């Protein structure tokens, strides 16, 4: 051993080599937080579900008067929101956040389809839905059916809505579940996003569903 060692030419670490080693070390160290972040599971803002059955299919009238079914969008992530046009406080916030989420996803955003189902079909005709939807994102689709149809779909998605007569000049207002339901590309209900989730948080959740 010792003989072999003494036979080796004496080698000192030259400055360029030392510098290179330091640079490599620095890069590795800098990469650690990134690696840790990558290895960490995605923190969902919405509630993740493991549904054994596919989400209930439905067919409703779109704002441009076409029959549209949920199953038309297999291969895309579908975000369903139950709301109504006369609602000025909550519904615009959620729809604006969905628009932001879609924009934040860039190219991937094209694989996200937002559907808004009106819980006030008596007032929200396709024409009114068309004007409302256009304000947010022309790719969104506004859907309406009759009250019974809407109630049937709402029940299947665990969504509550009820007309409330009020003293407002609007007449009635509609109480409704304000969550967003996310259906994965295979047609399974995967995520329920509560009201108050930001567009950025929605984008992160949708990205995960798109990629997994």
């Amino acid at each position, binding site marked *: 051993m010792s003989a072999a060692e003494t036979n080796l030419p004496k080698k000192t670490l030259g400055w360029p080599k030392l510098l290179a080693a330091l640079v490599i070390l620095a890069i590795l160290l800098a990469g650690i937080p990134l690696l840790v972040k990558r290895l960490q599971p995605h923190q969902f803002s919405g509630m993740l579900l493991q549904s054994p059955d596919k989400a209930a299919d439905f067919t409703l009238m779109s704002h441009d008067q076409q029959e549209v079914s949920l199953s038309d969008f297999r291969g895309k992530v579908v975000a369903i929101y139950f709301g109504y*046009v*006369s*609602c*000025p*406080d*909550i519904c*615009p*916030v959620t729809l*604006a956040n969905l628009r932001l989420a879609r924009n934040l996803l860039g190219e991937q955003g094209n694989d996200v389809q937002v559907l808004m189902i009106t819980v006030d079909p008596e007032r929200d005709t396709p024409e*009114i839905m068309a*004007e*409302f939807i256009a*304000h*947010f994102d022309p790719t969104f689709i506004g859907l309406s059916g009759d009250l019974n149809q809407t109630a049937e779909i709402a029940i299947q998605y665990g969504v*509550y809505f009820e007309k*409330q007569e*009020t*003293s*407002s*000049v*609007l007449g009635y*207002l509609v*109480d*409704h*579940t*304000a*969550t967003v339901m996310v259906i994965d590309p295979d047609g399974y209900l995967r995520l329920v996003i*509560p*009201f*108050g989730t930001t567009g950025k948080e929605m984008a992160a959740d949708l990205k995960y569903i798109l990629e997994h």
Partner: protein
Amino acid sequence: MKREKIYVLLLVIIMVLSLTACSSGAEGPDLKVTKAWGRPSAMMKGNGAVYMLIENKGSQDDQLVGASSNVADAVEVHETSMADGVMKMKHIMGIDLPAGETVELKSGGYHIMLIGINEKFEVGSTITVTLSFEKSDDITLEVEIREE
């Protein structure tokens, strides 16, 4: 002489009383409205919502009892509440403004609802809204339309 003294005494009493009356008049509510903004409207003839902070710096409670605007058919005070993910909105008769407190009108809580607006609220424009109170004088606001 005695009668004069009584007159002077009466005068003093009246002066003191009028002084306290004056000061109690200044002890009313003292309202300041800040950060008023409105959401852009989706519809040409739809509804709008306006939010703000109302601070009552006075020593007496007050109440917001109504509002009006030249750009809407009707203006109402509404309250949104969330319970178990269900949004409920109701028309309320007023918002209490306790002395020394600031009440926030915000999304998911109180808001001024403009019904049947006669112009589309575009980002960057302003609308005029007048608030009415139980005790204080009306306050007219220039409300900026913007995204949240």
